């Protein structure tokens, strides 16, 4: 191995600790380390970029044009941080601009290579997403801490005692797949499972519970460890942050969308978000036991499934960022 390759290997290994030597070797062959000049705006807010970056040296400044606030500096990030991850995974325009600091070097993963990993090395892709997801969980916890403080300081309306009682009494009931025949067929054909084989979808469905939950049924509670995954079949679920009985809504999760708390990524982490049905709903419930079994006995399927989890966590981060802006510009629920 040449000294340059050796240097590269050390740099990659320092960021992606969970990749083995062969996986790192392959990554080095198919990705590039790009160096940027100080002041280069290599991610422009509002445009879509098909590259995922990981900082290995130097720093970047993240900024954004925020409605009513002009251009605001959001944070400075250093080695180990992923960049452009929301835009890359969600295939959406970037919500921020990124400016290179002194002697910036980044590993650059192209979409073509990321897609290629699905076929040639799903485990490498899984490990990259796992590292990224853990980082996003940390960011979610940070934004949550900030939002909770803001909500506590605002004179927002509080949830009534009656609603609290209804929510505590409202429990889901079990259904069978025969009861929801049409929804199950839709699930098989949905884009959610587009990368799954029929056999894999059958296995997931066979191992899941179908539940019916009336409106205002709390499915995942803030400040608890809950590693359950849900897929909405009918109806909708609202994610929210509650502080001192003041509710700040995040987003609505409709049919054929998966959601879960950050506990599923970081096993010791408490859920930061409440997930409550906002319509009468039918859901597929994937228990922590089943997911653990999948992880240990059917790694191929687990790697695919983990991509859905990663996407849902990124969506959560995006909706929390949006709430952060709204709380600053609107007189919300006051």
């Amino acid at each position, binding site marked *: 191995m040449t000294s340059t390759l050796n240097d590269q290997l050390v740099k990659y290994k320092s960021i992606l600790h969970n990749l083995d030597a062969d996986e790192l070797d392959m990554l080095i062959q198919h990705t590039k380390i790009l160096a940027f000049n100080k002041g280069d705006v290599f991610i422009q807010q509002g445009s879509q970029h098909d590259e995922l970056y990981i900082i290995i040296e130097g720093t970047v400044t993240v900024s954004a044009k925020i409605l009513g606030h002009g251009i605001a500096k959001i944070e400075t990030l250093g080695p180990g941080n992923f960049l452009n991850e929301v835009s890359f995974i969600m295939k959406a*325009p970037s919500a921020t601009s990124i400016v290179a600091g002194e002697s910036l070097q980044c590993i650059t993963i192209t979409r073509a290579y990321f897609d290629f990993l699905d076929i040639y090395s799903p485990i490498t892709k899984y490990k990259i997403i796992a590292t990224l997801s853990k980082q996003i969980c940390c960011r979610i916890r940070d934004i949550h801490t900030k939002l909770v403080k803001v909500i506590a300081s605002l004179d927002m309306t509080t949830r009534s005692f009656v609603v609290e009682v209804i929510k505590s009494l409202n429990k889901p009931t079990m259904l069978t797949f025969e009861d929801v025949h049409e929804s199950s067929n839709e699930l098989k054909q949905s884009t959610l499972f587009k990368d799954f084989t029929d056999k894999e979808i059958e296995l997931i469905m066979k191992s899941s519970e179908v539940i019916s939950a009336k409106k205002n049924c709390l499915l995942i509670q803030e400040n608890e460890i809950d590693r359950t995954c849900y897929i909405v079949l009918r109806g909708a679920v609202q994610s929210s942050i509650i502080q001192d009985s003041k509710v700040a809504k995040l987003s*609505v999760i409709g*049919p054929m969308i998966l959601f879960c708390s950050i506990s599923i990524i970081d096993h010791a982490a408490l859920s930061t978000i409440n997930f409550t049905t906002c*319509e009468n709903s039918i859901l597929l419930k994937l228990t922590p036991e089943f997911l653990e079994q999948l992880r240990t006995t059917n790694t191929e399927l687990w790697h695919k499934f983990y991509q859905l989890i990663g996407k849902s966590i990124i969506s959560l981060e995006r909706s929390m960022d949006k709430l952060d*802006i*709204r709380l600053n*510009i609107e007189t919300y*629920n006051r």
Partner: protein
Amino acid sequence: MCRILSYLGKPIIVEELLYKPDNSFIKQSYHPQYMSHLLNLAGFGMVAWDGVSNNPTLPYLYKTPQLPFYDENLRNLTKKIMPKCILAHLRGVEYSNKQIVSMQNVHPFVFDNTNIALAHNGALYEFEKMKYDLLEYIKPSYIKEIKGSTDSEWIYAVFMSQLSSPAGQISAEEIAKAIIETLKIFHRVRKKHNIIVNSPVNLFITNGEFIAATRFVFDFGWFPKHSISPHASYHTLWYTYGDSYGYYDNEYKMKSSTEKSSIIISSEPLTQDTTTWMSVPEYTLIIASLKENDIIITSQDINI
């Protein structure tokens, strides 16, 4: 299905909103970005309040069931008028010979002796079943004003009936209360007829001094059996605010300012670049009111 644009603030040449940006309102009739499976070809309507016009509290009203992008009169008009408040609507209906495309069905609706206008984006599933149960919630003077066949005009009549003095000054609180009461009435009537199918009700209401808009769906996530509904996804609602809207720094946008002098609330952003636009969350009522040249934005959750 249907696109709506509303504006409140500094007087603006209407052409800047309707024709100039890269996702201009008129372009949304034949090339909507956020609901591309159905075009909005069943009519265009606009109400506009101009502070220097004759009787400025009443709006100017322009409606046509024709395709707006072929309308030369509209284009010429928009180059000249500079209102402080606009509510424009593009009607989109299913491609079916059962649909009635006529002037009477073009939004916004404004009854006689009032200056409150309403435009609706969405459709109430099985509205025909509900219609006559709504009569008890509509003041008799408004019943005879219903001229078209849309569910939207009935929503307008129910809403107007919830206001104590529709011609006078109305506070944001009263508007919010009337909107929520209107939605509750429809919820009750739907329940009576056991209607449990996704029905979006994105309403835009204005009197030239405020804009109220809802992003709301009854029974979201419940679809008719064996059919794909054009209303399956949650209808979008966006806003942007700032000093004034126009061509600044080589792009159409709101000129950035700490003052909120102008606001646009619309079904979709007027530009491909959505950087300075904010998406309104689902189940939300947003109200923008003009107070001494400053726009106050309030929002609240809709819990029916």
